[in-house]
């Protein structure tokens, strides 16, 4: 048996930027063409490395937003305050530029579509990005697996991938934590245990649970799902946060 975890050596490669589009006031979608892309699983990420003329480099990790079936690679990058990499990617980068990346990375936080049982996705902020890939994968494979998404954002304008959250077998609940627009039909508070009990798949269904967002969000949600009776081994989390200094 070939080792499941064995993979080809991960090398830096150059991607061509096909387009940079506005996803939200603070997030941009980078569409990339990667020659000789090894292919990825829904939920994996890439490392992006920027190099200045004097040799200074900065490196960050970004989830892949596009499904494995897409002919291109999409990243959605949220601009962080004082984030030198995210500032460059959201404000300076433009189509025709080259971007150095390596990937795909991470075999843990992935949904292979062949996995049995329903799927519960819970996203905070730009934590929805790997789920865009999973939902796209679900649509592309015409999967009959039930998927529910609970997605928390600050305001309606901060919602990422609004056109990609639906599909046959997919049901989505949105909640906004700051301002809600007139006529808003979704929820309007931070995710709490009550919300998890009412708007996610019950533990009796043994869903595979994916949680992605800022560390505090992930901690709250994971603890809440455990308290509702979900098995820890069925809960996969991915935390993101600022790394590497100022």
């Amino acid at each position, binding site marked *: 048996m070939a080792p499941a975890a064995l993979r080809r050596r991960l090398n830096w490669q150059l991607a061509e930027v096909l387009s940079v589009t506005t996803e939200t006031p603070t997030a941009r979608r980078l569409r990339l063409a990667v020659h000789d892309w090894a292919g990825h699983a829904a939920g994996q990420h890439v490392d992006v490395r920027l190099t200045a003329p004097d*040799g*200074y*480099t900065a490196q960050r990790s970004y989830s892949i937003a596009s499904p494995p079936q897409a002919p291109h690679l999409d990243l959605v990058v949220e601009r962080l305050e004082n984030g030198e990499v995210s500032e460059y990617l959201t404000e300076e980068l433009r189509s025709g*530029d080259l971007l150095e990346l390596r990937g795909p990375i991470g075999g843990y936080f992935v949904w292979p579509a062949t996995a049995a049982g329903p799927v519960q996705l819970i996203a905070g902020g730009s934590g929805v990005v790997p789920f865009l890939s999973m939902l796209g994968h679900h649509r592309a494979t015409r999967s009959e697996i039930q998927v529910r998404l609970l997605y928390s954002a600050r305001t309606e304008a901060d919602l990422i991938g609004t056109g990609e959250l639906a599909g046959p077998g997919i049901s989505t609940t949105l909640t906004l934590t700051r301002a809600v627009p007139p006529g808003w039909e979704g929820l309007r508070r931070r995710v709490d245990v009550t919300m998890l009990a009412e708007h996610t798949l019950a533990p009796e269904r043994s869903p595979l649970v994916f949680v992605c967002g800022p560390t505090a969000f992930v901690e709250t949600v994971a603890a809440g799902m455990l308290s509702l009776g979900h098995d820890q081994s069925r809960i996969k989390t991915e935390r993101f946060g600022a790394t590497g200094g100022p």
Partner: protein
Amino acid sequence: MGTNDIDPDTGTAPRFVSRGFTGRARRPRSARLPPGQYDVGSGFPVLSAGPTPNTHLSRWDFTVQGQVDRVRHYSWADFRALPREPVEVDIHCVTSWSKFDTRWEGVSVDTLLGDVESGAEYALAFSDGGYTTNLPLADITGGRAWVVDTYDGAPLRPEHGGPARLLVPHLYFWKSAKWVRGLVLGEVEELGFWERFGYHRYGDPWRQQRYAGD
């Protein structure tokens, strides 16, 4: 992690340059900047190797132990009652940022050692959370090191090492142990958390002593 470093080994032009990328604003080099460092300006990066401890001041103490005639304990109240000094210094982190004119207040290590009688040449600073770092005793005495509880006029915030941290500004900043709780004095140098991992046992930023062997 090497992600933000100017590669000290190659020092050559890389194969690929990201168009329009200069990195965070780097100010003109100052003579106060050790080699390989950049001026972080008004920022104050938080670098953590573990969880931020949450020790209540009623349970906080500072201990001088090891090769000493008698162990010294300072409660928080004892510590706060000691003579205090303002300190304004430049600090240099091994991850290559430096910060000028940082303003601290605290107690000189000379004061904390007081009348301790010891033949020790080295100290191992230890902290809540298990962090340690080793220092020659000569480098933390003679007015060169402090235990500080105040930064920029306000109580030192937990992410920057509060309630109190060691401040040894003439060495790389990993030597200035956050959440410090005491010193173990000894005749032999016992290596600390980063030093056991291959970081330089002394850590002089002006000689770029980042790693063992530098």
